[in-house]
């Protein structure tokens, strides 16, 4: 790359150089870990559902109780500083399940405690989860609309 070349050409050449140096993520390993940990969380969920059903709850309510338990566990592990260590290992495996959602609520809540309860925790609680909620609700709304017209 010569300095006297036009900047756009320098940028293009530099991009090639960066692409050559930048490390490739270990895709197969990451996918495998995500599969195992994500599956394990699902397995715990199933175990919890069976447990609550065994104690007499109907299926839907057992599911809700299992979700609540998982959310509680994820929040607890986040508070103890363990969840981010799991996520570092598991990647998407710990982000996608319901526990990832709990983590994304508790982490900002802890983080912004120093800025006060209302404008710190209150205002920032949904910084990570907010977009998920917004687009989740928008998608649900669109799906409902389609269902209404085309069922």
């Amino acid at each position, binding site marked *: 790359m010569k300095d006297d070349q036009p900047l756009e050409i320098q940028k293009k050449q*530099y991009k090639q*150089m960066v692409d050559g140096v*930048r490390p490739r993520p270990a895709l197969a390993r990451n996918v495998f870990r995500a599969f195992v940990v994500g599956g394990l969380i699902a397995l715990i969920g199933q175990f919890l559902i069976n447990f609550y059903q065994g104690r007499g709850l109907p299926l839907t309510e057992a599911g809700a109780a299992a979700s609540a338990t998982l959310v509680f566990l994820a929040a607890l592990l986040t508070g103890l*500083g363990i969840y981010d260590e799991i996520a*570092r290992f598991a990647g998407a495996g710990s982000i996608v399940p319901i526990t990832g959602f709990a983590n994304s609520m508790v982490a900002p809540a*802890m983080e912004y405690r*120093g800025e006060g309860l209302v404008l710190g925790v209150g205002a920032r609680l949904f910084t990570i989860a907010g977009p998920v909620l917004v687009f989740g609700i928008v998608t649900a709304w669109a799906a409902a609309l389609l269902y209404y017209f085309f069922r």
Partner: protein
Amino acid sequence: MPAAKKNGQQTVWFQNPPVIVATATIVGAKEGQGPLGHTFDKVVEDGYYGEKTWERGERRMLAEVMQTAVSRANLQPQNIDFLLAGDLLNQIISANFTARDLGIPFIGLYGACSTMYESMALGAMLIDGGYAENVLVGVSSHNSTAERQYRYPTEQGVQRPLHAQWTVTGAAAAVLSRQGTGPVITHATIGKVIDLGQGDPNDMGAAMAPAAADTMARHLADTARQPEYYDLFVTGDLGVYGRELALQLMRQKGYDISTRFNDCGVMIFSPEQDAHAGGSGCACSGVVTCGYLLQEVRAGRLKRFFGLGTGALLSPVSTMQGETVPGIAHGVVIEGR
């Protein structure tokens, strides 16, 4: 007519090279466990450093290294003509609030992670220009305060890409004086802001490498020196891959520095520490320079090095708005005396 103490386009030289009479460093636990752990004055295990927030903890580290450096130089704060300091937090609150307590005339600096070298270059200019007898320079950064400002909440579960770097927790300070004993600053090369279109805020090494290579090549051209003149070229926080990119860029400019080139971000953590590409942050170049590098110079094992602070001039807003990441690198020549 060119300025009397300027060499070439971007380099200044010092008639009476200012002396680095005293330094002080503090680092966090992870840095203390790294390969350079034994070269720091103090390792703080608690990220809060006994304070209520991480920001206050960072500030306490900065205040402490500054007080230590001043007392090691056998000076009082009122003997210091100027305080030059900066950090990574919005509106450089760590430096501003520390200056509030020190009562030294203060010039706040922001050069992102290049601030340590920016402050040494400016401090040396103030002294050799005859405007100051003693200048105190210092920087701080903190992994938790930087992460939450630039990226995610610290307990957020995310998998960082392999080229991401780990913001160093720590603070460093140095007292520069017109006279005294210790390593001296003979030249400073002020860098230009360079942007070759890298937009990944996680890959700051790639964003800063062109600036580092530009300043190194410019320095060699300005001073008409060959790379062999220096024992070491050392950049602030390019990381493993940024260092490789800077080497390749230097080769294209006609300089082979591969046998004498290192990076503070690579030096401060070992690969087993899971810091990925290496350390970053103001304190990265700060603590490695004021700790390990200057100790090597004082011990005579390192005679002369060209150190560069490298800064990625991004903000969370610029990243969100899709801007690329401009880089900057300021260098100073430090010699053993």
